[in-house]
């Protein structure tokens, strides 16, 4: 009995040690990319298998599916290729997420397809990655796909990129081949603007330098792929950057509590910090950082928290709480890199919905500055972008977004474009340059709603229709109706018997023009400002 207890105590002690070690692990997310036959699935299968992260029933399943009766014929690629469709086609068609851990780290792999038409998936995997592995077939060298992947990694700001020069077994583990490809890769990395790069010679099939270093390449003295993954510094924490909290939700359980909930996108916050609420520009100080687990003395990205403020500010979902000293731009006109994700090409002037942080705003693409030719990584003239196209565009939003440049903050510098008609996610954007801030830009805005007395309204309607301009005359005093009309590209002509009263109750603006039809048409076509006549 005492002996048993001692053994049990021992077991408990070991598990506590194990749990403490588990808890100290951090997280590295990496994406993998390669061309169709580069052996990417084989590499991941090997990485999981050799680091003992595969269950026996899974191995049994792929040994059977592989068809071989020999117990040794494990098809590593089948460990990761999931869906029926891709088994039939023999290629990976969608992003698959894999999980494994070693004694030091937890890893999340975004396994992205190498097939050309699925570049959007590669961008998807890259968007959250701390590191990218680019597979290169040692016999073939750098292909279009390799260039594309390196470029997308740079575009999406992945901090580290590793070239895994695979199939070294098929080039007799030649140092000369590796040296040449490694230098090609470093050259490419410099061209596309990758900063931290590494090349490692491997054979995924044979397991050389994947988990264990192998003596078949004595000339290689660097780390194995896994050793590199375990030791590379994760540098995307952002806790020293200026504080950013996109407000997802106002938490209001009762009259005496008003908290602003969100996931910290950058920086650190402490009670007493001076903040600015945007877009209102009102300032206050942080009162408390409230969580289910108690109040915090400080919180950093990427924690999800709720903060309360010393002053009662009007803040709602979509707003952003930022460091008062270093706020982001309040921008409604900016240049951005974009990866086009949809079969329907980018259309200038079409109404898209832009989602940035916790905010969805109507937006239009005003211009395509250029597209990027992926073969040469050179800019080319373009007026549109096709599926998998990459380019730089100018975007105008109806309401300002609270944006940082993507190079400074991947969370507050990124956005997606949604087609307002189909609800499809069509583009992934990265803010590169703020062209106009909301305040300066107000004067250039097109008029949207015209408020007029009965006679003027009738006359305006007639003239607008003569000019071929879509217009709807309404007596409904409902902002949502006007917005819907505006979103449909129609001038909302609001008719009222008491213009002055509506003007003061519904709008915070002065009448424009001298009340004549021509002055309104002038305003509609030429000058700026919302027109309330």
């Amino acid at each position, binding site marked *: 009995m005492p002996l048993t*207890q001692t053994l049990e*105590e021992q077991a*408990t002690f070991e*598990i*506590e040690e*194990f*749990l*403490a070690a588990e*808890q100290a692990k*951090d*997280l590295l997310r990496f994406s993998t990319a390669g061309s169709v036959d580069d052996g990417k699935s084989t590499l991941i299968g090997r990485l999981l298998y050799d680091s003992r992260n595969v*269950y*026996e*029933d*899974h191995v049994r399943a792929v040994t059977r*599916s592989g068809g071989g009766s020999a117990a040794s014929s494990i098809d590593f690629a089948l460990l*990761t290729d*999931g*869906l*029926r*469709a891709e088994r039939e086609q023999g290629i990976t068609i*969608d*992003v*698959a*997420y894999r*999980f494994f*851990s070693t004694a030091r780290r*937890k890893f999340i792999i975004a396994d992205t397809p190498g097939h050309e038409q699925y570049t*959007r*998936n590669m961008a*998807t995997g890259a968007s959250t990655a701390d590191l990218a592995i680019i597979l290169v077939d040692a016999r073939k060298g750098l292909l279009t796909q390799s260039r594309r992947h390196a470029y997308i990694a740079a575009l999406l700001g992945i901090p580290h990129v590793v070239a895994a020069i695979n199939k070294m077994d098929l080039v007799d583990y030649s140092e000369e081949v590796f040296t040449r490809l490694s230098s090609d890769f470093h050259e490419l990395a410099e061209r596309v603007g990758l900063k931290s790069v590494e090349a490692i010679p491997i054979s995924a099939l044979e397991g050389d330098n994947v988990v264990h270093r192998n003596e078949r390449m004595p000339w290689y003295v660097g780390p194995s792929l896994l050793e590199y993954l375990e030791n590379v510094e994760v540098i995307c*924490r952002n806790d020293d950057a200026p504080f950013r909290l996109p407000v*997802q*939700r106002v*938490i209001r*359980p009762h009259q005496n*509590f008003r*908290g602003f909930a*969100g*996931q910290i996108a950058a920086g*650190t916050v402490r009670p007493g910090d001076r903040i600015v609420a945007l877009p209102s520009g009102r300032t206050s100080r942080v009162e408390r950082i*409230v*969580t*289910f687990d108690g109040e*915090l003395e400080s919180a*950093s990205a*990427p*924690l*999800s928290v*709720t903060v309360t403020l010393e002053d009662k500010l009007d803040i709602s*979902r979509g707003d952003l709480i930022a460091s008062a000293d270093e706020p982001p731009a309040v921008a409604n006109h900016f240049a951005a890199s974009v990866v086009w994700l949809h079969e329907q090409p980018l259309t200038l002037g079409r109404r898209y919905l832009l*989602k*940035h942080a*916790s905010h969805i705003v109507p937006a239009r693409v005003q211009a395509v500055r250029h597209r990027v030719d992926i073969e040469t990584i050179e800019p080319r003239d373009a007026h549109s972008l096709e599926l998998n196209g990459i380019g730089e565009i100018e975007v105008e939003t109806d309401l300002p977004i609270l944006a940082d440049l993507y190079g400074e903050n991947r969370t507050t510098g*990124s956005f*997606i474009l949604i087609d307002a008609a189909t*609800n*499809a*996610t069509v583009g*992934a954007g990265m803010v590169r340059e703020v062209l106009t801030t909301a305040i300066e830009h107000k004067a250039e805005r097109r008029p949207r709603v015209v408020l007029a007395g009965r006679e003027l309204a009738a006359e305006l309607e007639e003239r607008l229709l003569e000019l071929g301009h879509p217009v709807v005359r309404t007596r409904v005093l409902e902002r949502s109706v006007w917005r819907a009309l505006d979103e449909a590209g129609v001038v909302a002509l609001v008719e009222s018997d008491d213009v002055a009263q509506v003007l003061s109750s519904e709008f915070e603006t002065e009448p424009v023009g001298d009340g004549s039809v021509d002055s309104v048409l002038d305003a509609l076509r030429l000058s700026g400002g919302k027109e309330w006549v």
Partner: protein
Amino acid sequence: MASSAVVDVPISTDRQRLSHLKQLEAESIHIFREVASEFEKPVMLYSIGKDSSVMLRLAQKAFYPAPIPFPLLHVDTGYKFREMLEFRDNYTRELGLDLLVWRNEAALAEGANPVKLGTQRCCGLLKTQALLDALRHYGFDAAFGGARRDEEKSRAKERIYSFRDKAGQWDPKAQRPELWNLYNSRVGPGESIRVFPLSNWTELDIWHYIHLERIPIVPLYFAKERRMLVRGDSLIPIEQSFVQGLPGEEQMVKCRLRSLGCSPCTGAIRSDADTLPKIIAELVSFRSSERANRIIDHDQDGSMEIKKREGYF
């Protein structure tokens, strides 16, 4: 000192090396808040299992100090373990949650069970059909589910916001790209999404979090002597009258359940793990995945994918 079974270790908030659990927690909370704010009528699918328990805790954290702003829905197949239902009723009452329970009464009245129909058809009626009916009945436009990407190969490709058409069906080729943490919440009339806030958690993460956070779970997860049908390697729970053993099959076995489903289709495993640390220790030494003891997944190659296409979680 070393004999203490539970050590209270707060999750590290080390600035330089944020623990992976803290990161996963922050991510999941972000997802809960997005969905609750952008959808008109969300619901949380509550399966009573360990993953549901973790989801529930994360939802509490997301909206604290306010209550969880959506109801819980349990799709009751009629064949759940008694201990699961007891736990469900007690725990949701204790937390003051709004719990909805839905059963496919018509199919049950006709005597639907896995022995009579086979597991595929039985699941189709009592799980998938019941779920779709419930979502339609209440008009939910977003439903949280506890599925994780590490569970099964077709799950590895699931989005966090999984788009479903008007029939509740999943088309793996029509899923929306998901970049950064920007989720597209736009759906047309009748369309909906399934949301998986635990997508990036592993089975080990779930158990570790339950341990650290002291989250209550159904006692069936802990090993004890239970009456089972012992058939080959399988331990079949005896809860339903149609589960009947041959002479000598019925035995008392020290065992536990690794995942909770319907009693006729969920095998137990022999185990001495009667505490959370022991369960975790057992898990670490395991050589097979948690769904290996689910009888349903092996009926047909790719059977999970087929069920998902039809509308299953």
